[in-house]
């Protein structure tokens, strides 16, 4: 995963996330939208075969929200992995 910052300001963030697709981005956007401080979060892949997805977030503190969302997903994955290890 290679992340290229296209635009960053106090209340907005635009990232190009190379080599990823819906599996990662749809999940991330969904968790971002659960956050009340996020006004808008969406991603778009310009072309399904050659384009790289672009993630756009508008909110009070988008970088902080993104970190929070990522950690929440990690937590959920961890819960499932620990339960699977007990099986």
């Amino acid at each position: 995963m290679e992340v290229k910052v296209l635009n960053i300001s106090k209340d907005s963030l635009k990232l190009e996330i190379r080599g990823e697709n819906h599996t990662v981005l749809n999940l991330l956007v969904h968790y971002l939208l659960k956050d009340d401080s996020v006004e808008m979060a969406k991603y778009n892949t310009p072309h399904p075969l050659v384009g790289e997805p672009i993630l756009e977030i508008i909110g009070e503190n988008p970088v902080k929200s993104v970190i929070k969302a990522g950690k929440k997903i990690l937590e959920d994955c961890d819960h499932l992995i620990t339960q699977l290890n007990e099986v």
Partner: protein
Amino acid sequence: MASIQILEINKLKVKFIIEGVSEVFANSLRRAMISMVPTLAVDFVDIYMNSGLMYDEVLAHRIGLIPLKTDLEKYNLKEKCTCSGEGCPSCQVSLRLNVEGPKTVYSGDLISDDPDTIPAFDNIPIVKLKEGQQLMLEATARLGFGTEHSKYQAVCGCGYKIIPEITIEDSCNNCGKCVEECPRDVFSSNNGTIEVTDIYSCSLCYLCVKVCEENAIQIDENTNRFLFSFEVDGSMTPLKVIKVALNQLKERFAEFTEKMEKLSVE
């Protein structure tokens, strides 16, 4: 909180429930199991001798589709290997085939360099040879992802469905129409009272709601419970597939949050 419960499991099939996560997470897990779990498959074949009737390329394609038992701790992805993609014993394995007719050549006839990396099933037919026909080849297998070719895909028929919550209200007059109408036999009549007995097989067709004259059946789809089921091709156990998929997802987000934390410091 996310929780997982395994209903049925054997060497090739699994059925499990994930609870407390959104449908988006369920879909990501499904996609991860299909495309993020690497398996070994033959992708290069050196044919020294082929006097059989099958063309070399068709033969190579058939060999490529044979699932191989994969130990992910043992092998690296070729592009991430220390040999920088040239090919070494820790990123590829070679299988030899040297047979003479008359016989049917099966996947079990492949002789692997690594005794643990063998075809998952030894009864997959490759080609039929007549008397005097000979086949001599060396196949090289490497790790790959399902996005590249389906021969690298560990799972087959991987899907999930919502487990709804069906409530029968007091206005039910126990007419039994829902029991008759339901194609999946979700309902049953117990001494005249209608009960939900097999909620896992409900396909959300709503025929029971339509047929109920008293409007006594309520179906709630937003339960955040999902029933997953899939089969594996034999390359690894179903449990391993779930674990690898979750770990892959975890790895991506760990990397992503790490990068974002660096960004916030700057």
